[in-house]
């Protein structure tokens, strides 16, 4: 591991602007990705981790979201300042992404093969048969058993696991240096999750890629990542090597997260829920983001509470 980061996010803030509102959702986030490492970004839903990752490739919804300050340095360039066509050249070829829900992230109207060959041809002026053979290779690399068959299939014909592998193939196909995987296993069942994660680890080893893994699952972090960044309400609250952070969490939120992880050796009754919810950025008192776990108990009121209750209760 060299000291030179491959991807360096410095003081990044992302704001929501429009319709008379304006506040930052992500504030002063900094993190670095070093060659060949797996960096995990951890946090609850809505804490800004996905948005940070998306902003690397300028994939955040803009408008209404804008990068308000900070830089994303990659290969000597600030990605927040490159032109649209330069950014397009980076996407997929230098930095690729794997998304959370493979079923909706693949265009339902096209076969896996079409998606893959389009991705090849977006970066290389090659004939279709060349693109096709690369696609088949990528499918195999992503751990798909019958690439020829899958090549001609539509997303709806693929299982969740296979879809996610197609996504991975799509990410691998142009041999990028960085893969950003945004909760790649959340939508999958447990055995498939493990396979996918193993595949990512193998790829790192085979190809020497760097991976940013976004997750809220500390178990995944522990088994895969080298380093981790903990985000909470749009800010980085803790970062460091995985073993250290997990062993000696400094921040109360990290402690809370750890407490919420079920352990096989523990009694289910000791599972500690994190009370309340992630405060919305506009609800935070100015200059302070530390009512860390607002022990709010008024879950019976308000629409969001209702949705939460709906999600929590079986």
């Amino acid at each position, binding site marked *: 591991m060299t000291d030179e980061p491959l991807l360096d996010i410095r003081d990044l803030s992302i704001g929501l602007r429009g319709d008379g509102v304006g506040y930052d959702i992500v504030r002063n986030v900094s993190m670095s990705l070093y060659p060949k490492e797996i960096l995990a970004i951890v946090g609850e839903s809505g804490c800004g981790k996905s948005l940070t990752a998306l902003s690397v490739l300028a994939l955040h919804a803009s408008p209404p979201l804008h990068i308000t300050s900070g830089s994303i340095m990659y290969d000597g360039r600030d990605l927040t300042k490159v032109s649209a066509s330069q950014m397009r050249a980076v996407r997929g070829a230098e930095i690729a992404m794997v*998304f959370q829900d493979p079923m*909706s992230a693949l265009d339902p*109207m096209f*076969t896996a093969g079409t998606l893959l060959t389009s991705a090849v041809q977006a970066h290389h002026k090659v004939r279709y048969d060349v693109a096709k053979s690369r696609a088949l290779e990528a499918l195999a690399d992503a751990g798909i058993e019958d690439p020829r068959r899958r090549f001609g299939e539509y997303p709806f014909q693929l299982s969740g696991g296979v879809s996610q592998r197609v996504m991975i193939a799509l990410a691998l196909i142009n041999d990028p240096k960085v893969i950003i995987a945004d909760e790649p296993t959340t939508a999958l069942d447990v055995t498939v999750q493990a396979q996918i994660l193993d595949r990512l680890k193998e790829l790192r080893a085979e190809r020497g890629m760097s991976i940013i893994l976004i997750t809220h699952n500390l178990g995944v972090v522990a088994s895969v990542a080298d380093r981790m960044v903990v985000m909470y309400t749009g800010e980085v609250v803790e970062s460091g090597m995985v073993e250290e952070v997990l062993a000696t969490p400094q921040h109360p939120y990290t402690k809370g997260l750890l407490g919420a992880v079920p352990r096989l050796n523990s009694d289910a009754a000791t599972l500690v829920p994190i009370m309340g919810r992630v405060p919305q950025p506009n609800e935070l008192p100015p200059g302070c983001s530390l009512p860390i776990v607002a022990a709010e108990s008024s879950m019976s009121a308000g629409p969001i509470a209702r949705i939460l209750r709906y999600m929590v209760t079986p």
Partner: protein
Amino acid sequence: MRSLLKTVVLTFLLLLASSLAVFAAIRLSGGDVTAARLPASATAADRQLFRHQMGLDQPILKQYATYLGKLFKGDLGNSLTNSAKISTLAVEKIKNSLILGATSMLLVFGIGIPLGMIAALKRNSWFDTGITSASVAGMAVPNFWLALIAIYFFSTRLGWLPSAGQGGIKYLVLPAFVLSAEGIALTVRMTRSAMLDNLNQDFVRTLRAAGLSERRIYFKHVLRNSLLPIISLAGLRVGQIVGYALVVETIFGWPGVGQSLVNAVLRRDYPVVQFFSLLLVLVVTLGNLAASIGYTLANPKLRK
């Protein structure tokens, strides 16, 4: 594919049923040709004999079967108004209506889809606002009035286009535009909202992340997805064109099926009403069927 076959069979049965309904409605409603064919001085016995000869004293189902039998042999009967063979009349009328209808369908989609796409692409621009407002207005303006305004400006005042009748392409312009106006407005609206919907889909982000160009994403992926709802409702557009053709053909003196049907209804020329209404029912049904076939073919999920 299996469900498609089922749809075809069911559609055919319903078509048969509705043609019987139309037949019965017209026959039972005093659409007895006796009064129109025989002189007023004819005696009751004459009338009874005539009814017997014409098979009008048979049960309605039998009459219908006879009618269908003749229909398949190409014997459509004669018009009561001018005694012309309906089969002779029909060829010309169908040709004219097809020209007008097909042109209008082309305009509906050929103009509606691109405008909707541009509006979605440039959403919230002045162009989008203009197109969206125009489409709201386009859906509210009654087409017969639009026709009058169009004739007044383009024929009467400016003299650019003929106001009625038939001839070259220039005769087609006004009726086709008026006939397709509402369809264009609706298609613009649908295309725009479908494009915007699909632009927000996860797969667009995936394609962007893979480095595909915006143009390719837009024109290949988003468009293809947006066309699905448009195709699924294309059958309704056919129906709409058929329905409005009844009015628009009348205004522009376009000698098609619509104008003939309205005139025949006004004249109580029942054989003509019967045939042309069956024809339009058929066209509407086939339009809906074609749309569902198109939808099946365009949608990989159903195609497989």
